[in-house]
């Protein structure tokens, strides 16, 4: 099984479904890639959700402040022009549902996985790093010209407990 492609499909399916159901928006499937280098600086909103089980990792959602406000407006049916608590909460819940959908799809392949509580960061010129992570699967969606990036990294639990060795070996954790 090509787990990378499975994850890309799961991210696409989950994101499209969540946007359609909760925001009433038809969003097209996104372009996918694999990132192995450290991400550059971020501006905007990033929301994280941890996964744990026999495999461990993180799911994240990144977007501009404009798109975050748009998510909030569609989800809660309230007009919002600046990033506030309500906007951050809406983005956190969007992440919870998108990554939760991916997690549910993955459980059929990888066994039970648990989800953490989402954490949302809003700011300018900040960097994020997940300890021991070698690869991120990245899917980029476009909504009226604004980009929404969904990322997922996943590693077998035994490799995650030895991140330095795993990184040095340059093994691909996602081919099973």
């Amino acid at each position, binding site marked *: 099984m090509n787990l990378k492609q499975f994850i890309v499909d799961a991210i696409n399916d989950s994101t499209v*479904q*969540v946007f359609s*159901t*909760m925001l009433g928006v038809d969003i097209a499937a996104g372009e996918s890639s694999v990132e192995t280098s450290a991400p550059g600086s971020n501006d905007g909103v990033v929301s994280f959700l941890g996964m744990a089980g026999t495999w461990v990792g993180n799911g994240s959602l990144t977007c501009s402040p404009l798109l975050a406000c748009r998510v*909030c407006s569609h*989800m*809660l*049916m309230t007009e919002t022009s600046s990033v506030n*608590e*309500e906007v951050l*909460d*809406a983005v*956190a*819940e969007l992440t*919870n*549902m998108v*990554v*939760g*959908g991916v*997690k*549910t799809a993955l*459980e059929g392949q990888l066994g*039970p*996985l648990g*989800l953490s*509580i989402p954490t949302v960061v809003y700011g300018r010129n900040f960097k994020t790093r997940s300890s021991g992570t070698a690869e991120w699967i990245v899917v980029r969606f476009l909504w009226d010209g604004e980009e929404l990036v969904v990322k997922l990294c996943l590693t077998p639990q035994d490799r995650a407990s030895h991140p330095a060795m795993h990184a040095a070996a340059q093994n691909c954790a996602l081919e099973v």
Partner: protein
Amino acid sequence: MDSDVLVVDDSAAIRKILQRVLRQTGMAIRTIYEAGDGQQALEVLESNSVHLILTDINMPKMDGLQLLAALKAGAIWRNIPVVMITTEGGEAKVAEAVRLGAAGYVRKPFTADQIKEKLVGILEPALPL
């Protein structure tokens, strides 16, 4: 008779959406109480009677399964129907919720129709959609 409902979710966004969706179902609902976790839910129940609880599973402090277990373990609230609304769609969580006595299970993302379908038979419908 109009019903009182308690919505339990750590996300204010989801609580707000559920408020709207519950009103959209056309069911006879009088008051919708809110709580941000299981502990807050128990505090709300100390001073209010409700006919239905909708709860998330994945919450800080006391999660939805712990809340469900606490409700079913006591004599006062054990007969209140509890519907789980959550992203935790795995079979293990569903089985655990059923084992603990959940009246139903709705997976996020959800539509108003899905919520109504689950609540028919639990709450009296006031008006058709």
